[in-house]
């Protein structure tokens, strides 16, 4: 009797879910966008199931989100949509080991009235480790589709913010109806970065390092106090409730790592210093300068996600009369370009398995970067490992994805030839078994759409209203290199030097990019976003470091002479 009741109860609880899922399938679809089947068979394709492996003329079956078969002797289910894979290459879907993909940048927080700068509220100070990136996720974020278009299926997304912006999540780069559908794994890490609060404590690295030590030591004490109180509260003063400390409990227990967004050598060393003092598990992402600290990274078991923001090869001045000094300066710059490029192979040689971070990188530059790395001892197999198996292991999802294997999630990319070459295009991407098909233009290797070509390409004259007066200059957009690039220039001769736009995105008439400049020793990043209507752009330029948003407008046209 008791048993029966238990069973009925379970059924009762489960029933609404069963019905709900049936409803999803049975729901009519007046838009006609739902696929006829979720079973796909890619046949006669060149399959790279994992880095270094290859199946010629093979078949992959992806059914209801899962890879159900792979090989040369595979029975194709009768209800499958068959994709002729002749001349096509199939790879595991890429994993972006650190980015803001899918996360909306929140409006800069207003400076509170009568802010007590030595001790600002936690949200203004940027100390919000209790927040999840899920709160910033937006299913309409254009970065989801732009990253998917180049082969990424999973992103380890970190929140926008300052010193401790919150917890990261692994998300699927799919067209979801609800944010919850994007989430593959939540609270993967507690994120930290060396970004101070504008005009309040901690204002820079000095305060951030000290605040870090304080927060961590108090989290340890708070954990002990709370456990003591929970075991027997009699006679004890109630420990203070503190969300920041609580958010650090899993870090203190070493069940959750700290992910430091640390691009420079010195920032990475500081992250390792904090780890040495406190003993937490450490990931370093967005790292651009690893070559001097390979031993430290190795000895301290740091999980590394190298930045895909790879420098352009410096161009030498071809002036015949250039001075010896300029020639020497060029030679030394080239030496550092080479060091930068060689670090990928150097890390590999040291036995360090690392992933790639696309944080702050324009998606259209990414594939070009892999090709550039091939000249520096980092071949396509190495690149694929850093995009699939290595980040899957480091992020704890290697049982789910990272290779094309029976039973794994249906994350794959299909390209018109070997992916890591300049004459192939991504033809389709599967995320969680759902197919995303891309139109490929004949005789063109550019992933730039007609919309971009007609609306954006050319010179724009912008006007920026700063507190010091109006600043004007040009934006020059081009696709000459095969990818969409933009340059930000200033009409003021004493103003900014020409600066490349980073993280450039344009879709549905909405343009966004960022650029960084040196303001007297401090690098400032300006984030520009807005909408284009005909030949007019209206938007805002945001400088997080100053907590400042100012209007920016632009009109398309030939530069005034």
């Amino acid at each position, binding site marked *: 009797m008791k048993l029966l009741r238990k069973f009925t109860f379970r059924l009762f609880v489960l029933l609404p879910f069963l019905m709900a899922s049936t409803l999803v399938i049975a729901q009519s679809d007046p838009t006609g966008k739902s696929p006829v089947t979720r079973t796909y068979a890619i046949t006669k394709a060149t399959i790279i199931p994992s880095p270094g492996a290859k199946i010629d003329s093979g078949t992959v079956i992806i059914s209801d989100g899962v890879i159900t078969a792979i090989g040369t002797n595979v029975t194709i289910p009768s209800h499958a949509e068959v994709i002729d894979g002749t001349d096509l290459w199939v790879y595991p879907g890429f994993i972006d080991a650190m980015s803001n993909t899918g996360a909306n940048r929140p409006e800069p927080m207003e*400076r509170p009235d009568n802010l007590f700068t030595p*001790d600002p509220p936690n949200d203004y100070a940027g100390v919000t480790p209790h927040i999840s990136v899920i709160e910033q996720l937006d299913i309409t974020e254009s970065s989801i589709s732009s990253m998917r278009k180049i082969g990424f299926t999973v992103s380890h997304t970190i929140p926008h913010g300052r010193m401790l912006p919150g917890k990261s999540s692994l998300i699927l780069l799919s067209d979801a109806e609800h944010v919850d559908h994007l989430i593959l794994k939540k609270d993967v890490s507690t994120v930290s970065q060396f970004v101070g609060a504008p005009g309040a*404590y901690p204002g*820079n*690295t*000095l305060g951030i390092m000290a605040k870090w030590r*304080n927060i961590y030591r*108090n989290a340890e004490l708070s954990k002990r106090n709370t456990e003591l109180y929970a075991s027997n509260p009699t006679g004890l003063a109630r420990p203070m409730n503190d969300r920041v400390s609580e958010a650090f409990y899993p870090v203190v227990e070493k069940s959750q790592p700290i992910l430091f967004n640390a691009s420079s050598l010195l920032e990475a060393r500081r992250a390792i210093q904090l780890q040495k003092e406190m003993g937490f598990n450490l990931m370093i992402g967005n790292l651009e300068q690893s070559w001097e600290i390979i031993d430290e990274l190795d000895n301290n078991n740091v999980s590394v996600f190298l930045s895909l923001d790879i420098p352009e090869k410096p161009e030498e001045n071809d002036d015949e009369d250039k001075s010896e000094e300029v020639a020497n300066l060029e030679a030394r710059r080239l030496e550092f370009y080479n060091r930068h490029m060689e670090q990928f192979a150097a890390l590999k040689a040291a036995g360090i398995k690392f992933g790639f971070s696309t944080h702050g990188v324009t998606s259209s530059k990414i594939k070009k970067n892999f090709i550039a790395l091939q000249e520096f001892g980092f071949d396509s197999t190495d690149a694929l490992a850093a995009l699939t198996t290595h980040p899957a292991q480091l992020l704890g999802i290697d049982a789910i994805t990272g290779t094309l294997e029976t039973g794994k999630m249906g994350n794959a990319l299909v390209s018109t030839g070997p992916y890591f070459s300049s004459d192939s295009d991504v033809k389709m991407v599967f995320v969680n078994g759902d197919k995303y098909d891309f139109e490929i233009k004949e005789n063109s290797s550019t992933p730039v759409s007609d919309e971009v070509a007609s609306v954006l390409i050319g010179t724009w004259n912008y006007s920026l209203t700063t507190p010091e007066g109006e600043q004007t200059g040009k934006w020059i957009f081009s696709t000459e290199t095969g990818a969409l690039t933009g340059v930000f220039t200033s009409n003021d001769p004493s103003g900014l030097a020409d600066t490349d736009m980073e993280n450039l995105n344009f879709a549905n008439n909405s343009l966004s990019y960022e650029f960084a400049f040196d303001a007297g020793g*401090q690098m400032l990043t300006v984030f520009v976003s807005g909408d284009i209507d005909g030949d007019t752009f209206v938007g805002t330029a945001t400088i997080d470091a*100053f907590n400042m948003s100012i209007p920016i407008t632009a009109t398309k046209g030939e530069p005034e002479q």
Partner: protein
Amino acid sequence: MKTLRLTSIFTILMLLFSINDAKAQAPKGDVLIQNATVLTITNGTLENTDILIEDGKIKNIGKDLRQPNNVTVIDAEGMFVMPGIIDAHSHIAGTSINEGTSQVTAEVSMEDVVNPMDVSIYRALAGGVTSIHLMHGSANVIGGQNETMKLRYGTTNPDDLRFEGAPRTIKFALGENPTRGGRQRGIQPQTRMGVEAMIRNSFNDAIKYREAWADYNSNRSNRKIAPEFDLRMETLVDILEGEILVHCHSYRADEIYMLMRVFSDFGIDKLTFQHANEAYKVAPELAAFGASASIFSDWWAYKLEVYYSTAYNAAILTRNGVNTSINSDSGELIRHLFHEAAKSQKYGGLSDNEALALITINPAMQLGIDNCVGSIEVGKDGDIAIFDKHPLSTYAIPQMTFVDGVKYFDINTDEADQRIMIDPESTIEDVVIFSREDFDMCMHEESLVNFYELVNEEK
């Protein structure tokens, strides 16, 4: 059993690694300098004398020393050898200078922001400097902890520049700078009175903090809720207990005297006044307290509170028995501190030895490193500067600079491009002489904060 053994092997490995980490030792050199005029500072001037440095330490000083095998020999005939110059007030080689957002930031440390790749380090070496005191800025009443460093240029690891065994020091600031910050933010202190109150309140808070933890630790068997940990209070407690030397930015005689009274009340005696332009007015009082002064030779006229300044400051303080040093507070002045010291001979007639002590043994004592550096003595570190003429001569040019017996500067092999880290995307244009001086001064980051506030207040 097997797991146990594995664990112990692992522990041993970890220990080995941590020892390796701690021992990531700076290079030590061997060198024999022959036939030099040696300005020892503590033992007069020795003509035609050799100095033998082995494994980074001065092993022997004397005439016609035997040349050991495999030791580099430098013929310094006609040249002058002095101890490496020590700058007790510098802001080069830091990626941040001020955490100016709060008026008490004892918890922050310049150790965290050392930039070993700053080419200003090389420029300082080219001026005979071997050690600097990288100070926090003067935007706050109790600023951050400073870092005493050796200029071992050529590494990307900040730890390689650490001055092993140097005591901890901290920056305090009085007068216009911290009160300006207070007024801008509408917080304490807005007056010189507020500065004193803030220092007293901070120490009283630290005493309470120490009591709270002492009480918690006194009987651990009791079930107790631990008090909050506060790195700021921990640091202030260490000051009260004499573990941290205080270096206080100050100008006016009245506030210099004020701080000595406050420190007497709290029983703190390790105190150096930085800048101290009016220290000459309270020289006997400084001597009685045992406080030191680290000053400019003749730099003033940049704000009201430096109005009553004199180039005789160094001489008056020295004659009154106050340990006095001359510092740079600048990425430019640091290259010719020997000129700055020489000015005390024009203004006040200090002897050669007294003048050179201003940039060697005296700052070493102020930083608590005089057991290692500041004079040429057997057993001290091989930190040496070689000049072609007497360093107090206007015509003197530094020739070589050694730290721990390792040569970091040699005018004969001085490459034009001394950068350690280069941005591969940097543009190369006509070479422009660029002044870093604005960066290397105390108030640098505060002016950035001011810009921010300008923006927001005009909104």
